[in-house]
């Protein structure tokens, strides 16, 4: 890995952002109403708020270098899939619903790649842990040997 450059000048480097711009990269095009709608009380309706699924699709698509624009149709499909409890998580059944094991798995990855890894490195290793060794129930370290 390329050696990280260090900034040695005295005092912090400051970036000043108006809150509205900080909140959204497109904020200059956004009205204050749209910003407030995101932090206010949800609107009146009794259906499925598809925004969560849209974000999920957006992240998955962006990571595959596909069209990253959020697609409500796929969000709705995702919601329907979730209703049938068809999770695609690469965790073993015993780990999947045990949050403590999930957090221990994260810690294990950190232990392997060091205290200040770049985020992408974490991503690659964590996904490998999830998808390749499918975190065993006992989270034993030898499982990593199967991959590396």
């Amino acid at each position, binding site marked *: 890995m390329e050696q*990280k450059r*260090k*900034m*040695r000048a005295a*005092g*912090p*480097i*400051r*970036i*000043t952002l*108006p*809150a509205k711009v900080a*909140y959204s*990269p497109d904020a200059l095009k*956004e009205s204050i*109403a*749209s*910003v*407030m*709608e*995101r*932090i*206010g*009380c*949800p*609107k*009146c309706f*009794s*259906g*499925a*708020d*598809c*925004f969560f699924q849209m*974000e*999920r699709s957006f*992240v998955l698509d*962006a*990571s595959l270098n596909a069209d*990253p624009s959020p*697609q*409500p149709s796929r969000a709705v499909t995702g*919601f*329907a899939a*979730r*209703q049938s409890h068809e*999770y695609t*998580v*690469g*965790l073993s059944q015993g780990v999947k619903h045990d*949050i403590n094991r999930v957090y221990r798995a*994260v*810690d294990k990855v*950190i232990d392997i790649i060091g205290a200040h*890894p*770049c*985020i*992408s490195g*974490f*991503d690659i290793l*964590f996904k490998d842990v999830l998808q390749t060794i499918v975190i065993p129930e006992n989270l034993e370290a030898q499982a990593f040997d199967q991959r590396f």
Partner: protein
Amino acid sequence: MNLPELGVGLIYSSALEPLLTEAPDLINVLEIEPQTLWAEQKEGEVPYVIPPELDEHLASLPGRKLVHSVGTPVGGSIQSYEAQMPLLRDAVEKLQAPWASEHLSFNLTDDFFTGFFLPPRQTEEGVLVYAEAVRKLRAGLGVPLAIETGVNYLRPRADEIPDGAFMAAVAEEADCGILLDLHNLYTNQRNGRQTIEAFLADLPLERVWEVHLAGGFEVEGFWLDSHSGAVPEPLFALCQEVIPNLPNLKAIIFEIFASFLPQVGLETVRAELEKLRGLWELRGAQPVGNNQRNSRPATYPDVAPISPHEWEKALGKLVIGRSPETALEADLAKDPGVPLVQSLIKEFRGSMVVQVYRLTCRLLMLALTPDVFRVILEDFWSQTPPQQFAASEAEAFGDYLVAKNLRLPQLQNILAFERATVRTLTDGKPRLVHFNVDPLPILRALSEGRLLAEPGPEGDYEIEITPEGPLTISPRYEAVRYGRS
């Protein structure tokens, strides 16, 4: 009741503003949901704030305005409207709304918000309790009040007054108007509750001042009131028969949830408004008194002595995922509508968090996979009840993440940045957030939905979040980042 005829319009959403500009003649009235534009301040001098420029902006939009409250429902034994009343009344006055409306539903128990509008206890006691809530809210607002017919995903119960008769009883006891949400009734009918025809046969139609229409879709055998597009054809056909029987109809409002606009497009909204204008022309075509309303029984038997308060406590507890303990809770837990509402509440809660802390959530999804992020959210939901406002829900999730101290690179910095930003948006105070690496490449990558391939240069960086003003970057940033002097 001498109310003005307003015509056809929309529930306001900022995403619909291009249509307001392009086709102002198509929209006679905008219905504002004030609480959707407020920021909650749990530690501020006042509990809720709205940017002053937003008040002015709303007033400047075309058409007359109505106020549709979404935070003070009247179908519960516990109300929370005292804190909201000053801003709510302010909205009514500034927007010069001739009437306001609220939901005959509940969203609050003794201990928590439910995160969803839930059906009231439909008994004689419920009629008295909710009518009193209507009177109090109306007195606080200072204008006539209409109550909305709600969605109910539960099966009909033997120990409750039928839906139409219950709505009629509350409206007559409180002497208020009715907001007839026909898509809500269509949803209830599709899901096995009373038919629209039977509901209307029990209703004092002269009390209907306003109609709501929307579209939905089916999931797992349930029709959802999702406000996702055009009014279903069978419902539109029924409207052509119902609208002429509403002698005091003053407004027809189309509802669409902004998240679906990228899919359906503004042209669908425009087309629906044109169809609604056709319906509007049918209003009051039948002579008053033509409605053959069912006569109301003197009393309805309470088979089970379940009070509104007990009902709200039991149902509220179940839908946020807590285990049944009492006989009523065990009985309600068998209803297939309960797991559906549990799922919908989770989607709401997840949507609130990802909308407010978008970059933090993207980092978690990208680094840990979306499914592990979901497992984390499930853990958070199991520990913390829903919040009424999105920023507060996100704040609670932020507290959870801080307590977990997840060792994910940059997570705490990104979270601190987004928390500071939302807090500054709410209270107008500037804040500083520190980073130990150049933050801009990380923020840019996450806003594009990707992780950073290479970390930026390490160093002492700070981002100052200000309530307003220009974006400025220290000249030293350029020098360090790009080697420029």
